[in-house]
């Protein structure tokens, strides 16, 4: 009998092409997702060395970071010169090297981590990489997925493999059930709040427990998406009926007999009883509250009922970091988080730009209006999410509330396109990073769930969404 294996062990073992004595492996890559920002130098590298893309059929390219999200964006003039150069480079490279491509004009275009699953490119048991740290998202399918740098993008393009050493196994278990108003975003932020942004360094995390099982695929993607903010190489969730139901019928998912064969294999993808984890973290689902971040690191997480912490309450280098954060964020220790007024709201990104996120935001915004002086950008994660939201009447709810209803892209998650915060502006954001300047020079970001962001949008300050859930309008 073989030793019990974790899910990570199983996927890893199935992809080892070659292993050296020191444990360095050549790992096969099943899906390579590519976007415009981290790929031009890699394609250029191929050209300079006369190499080809080894497996163009496994390579999927889509522009997302730079693209404008305004309705008139098909007109290239709406892009700045350098953005246009980057998007055009992707266009040219995708064609020249023969990879799958979803241009801006294609309704299937969107954020790479939303498009991959939506089109059925991401399936259980696969290895998935992208020159983007939030590749961790795809771990929700029980796929080993992680971000890589541009040199590695070139390596995968040329060889369809990566040189890797195995990470350690970490288990994050969320037991029991979430309380009403608490979502996948609160889970993932609560985990980072507990483990810190370096807590997962050197690990692949497997999320498990009843509260994880209860999540939809959308919610699971939200959880895995931010594994990287916890420092982990990847996050994983074992596939189950929820996963299979999501994958079935997707354009690039197997059909017929191939589906049956795939399904039989996918059902073996779980952590064996007694398998070893190097680190275990357990959180009770009932203990998780709606959370927000107060500082400039994703680990700066607190329940919405809390107050802004004093830098002195930390230890080591974090004392100075917290001082710097509060100064940057324009906050004083001791103030209630719910007293923090906001100027802008961003609902979107690969963390929370899926249909379920828009439904959660719309449920709060329905029949309500934006607080005076607040602007809100609602940016669907893909053209298909946008179309579905329009069909379900969500778009109209957003428009009626006074929000801007945009085209798909990364948008104000990292503000590489014109969607940016002005200096000093404060934003309730469903994205994943609250770093200094992330959403615009001197912009201030508070991370939270779509429901919480919508609640802030109507009250004009950070708000416990549960208070709005009990009131009817």
């Amino acid at each position, binding site marked *: 009998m073989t030793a019990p294996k974790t899910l990570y062990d199983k996927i890893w073992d199935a992809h080892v092409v070659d292993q050296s004595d020191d444990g360095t492996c*050549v790992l*096969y890559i099943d899906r390579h997702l590519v976007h415009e920002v981290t790929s031009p130098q890699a394609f250029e590298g191929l050209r300079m060395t006369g190499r080809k893309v080894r497996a163009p059929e496994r390579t999927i390219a889509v522009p997302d970071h730079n693209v404008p999200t305004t309705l008139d964006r098909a007109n290239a003039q709406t892009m700045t010169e350098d953005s246009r150069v980057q998007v055009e480079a992707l266009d040219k490279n995708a064609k020249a090297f023969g990879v799958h491509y979803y241009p801006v004009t294609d309704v299937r275009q969107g954020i790479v981590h939303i498009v991959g699953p939506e089109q059925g490119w991401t399936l259980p048991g696969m290895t998935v990489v992208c020159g983007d740290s939030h590749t961790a998202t795809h771990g929700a399918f029980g796929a080993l997925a992680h971000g890589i740098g541009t040199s590695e993008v070139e390596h995968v393009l040329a060889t369809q493999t990566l040189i890797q050493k195995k990470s350690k196994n970490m288990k994050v278990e969320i037991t029991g059930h979430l309380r009403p108003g608490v979502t996948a975003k609160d889970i993932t932020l609560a985990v980072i709040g507990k483990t810190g942004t370096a807590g997962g360094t050197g690990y692949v995390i497997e999320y498990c427990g009843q509260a994880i099982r209860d999540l939809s695929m959308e919610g699971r993607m939200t959880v895995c998406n931010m594994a990287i903010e916890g420092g982990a190489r990847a996050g994983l969730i074992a596939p189950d009926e929820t996963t299979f139901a999501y994958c079935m019928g997707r354009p690039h998912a*197997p059909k017929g007999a191939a589906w049956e064969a795939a399904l039989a294999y996918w059902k073996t993808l779980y952590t064996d009883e007694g398998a070893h984890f190097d680190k275990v973290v357990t959180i009770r689902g009932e203990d998780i509250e709606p959370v927000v971040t107060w500082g400039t690191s994703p680990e700066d997480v607190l329940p919405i009922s809390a107050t802004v912490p004093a830098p002195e309450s930390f230890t080591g280098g974090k004392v100075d970091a917290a001082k710097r954060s509060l100064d940057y964020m324009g906050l004083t220790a001791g103030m209630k988080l719910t007293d923090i007024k906001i100027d802008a709201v961003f609902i979107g990104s690969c963390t929370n730009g899926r249909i379920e996120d828009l439904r959660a935001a719309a449920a709060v915004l329905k029949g309500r209006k934006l607080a005076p002086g607040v602007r809100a950008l609602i940016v669907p994660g893909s053209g298909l999410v946008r179309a579905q939201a329009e069909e379900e009447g969500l778009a109209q709810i957003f428009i009626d509330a006074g929000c801007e209803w945009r085209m798909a892209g990364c948008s104000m998650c990292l503000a590489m396109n014109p969607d940016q915060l002005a200096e000093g502006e404060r934003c309730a954001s469903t994205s994943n990073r609250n770093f*200094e300047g992330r959403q615009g020079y001197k912009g201030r970001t508070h991370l939270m769930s779509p429901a919480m962001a919508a609640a802030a949008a109507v009250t004009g300050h950070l708000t416990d969404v549960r208070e709005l859930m009990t009131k009817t309008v």
Partner: protein
Amino acid sequence: MDKFTKLTGIAAPMPLVNIDTDMIIPKGFLKTIQRSGLGVNLFDEMRYDRSGNEIADFVLNKPQYRDAEILVAGDNFGCGSSREHAPWALLDFGIRCVISTSFADIFFNNCFKNGILPVVLPQEAVDYLMDDASKGANARITVDLEAQTVTASDGTAFHFDVDPFKKHCMLNGLDDIGLTLEKVAAIDTYEKRVAAQFPWV
């Protein structure tokens, strides 16, 4: 990629924890389609004010650190995005080695692909070197990859661990892709095997 063997240089202290990739190179500079030229924008938002004037008390703007080749940094350096623009910017500025208690995973890998050596040392050692670096340009720190040591200006030496394969590539300036392509037969064999076993992939 340039080889990395032994380096003696000025080390700049950056004790802040969680220095992220957006700080190292803000996204406004990711629109380039080249690898070079990012050094002037390294730490852009910490280094310059909105009108592009240098902020005098930022460490790399101080006269004694302008030629720094080593950074001694707080915990979790390089967290955030996968952008290889971060090591490209460091390299273009002239930084060849970063010393910290921990690094974010992707950044750490990206450094090795670009001839920058990320050195992980325990807190006490980093504190010692941070103090040393704070003494300015007279305090030259020596990083010896072959011997796996960092030596402070007073001769105090600290041993560090490094992955043997990565060390080998750095010492010899080897291109990974070339190395992997030597194993192309194994890749062919793997592809044939899985095509039969997992035809849906």
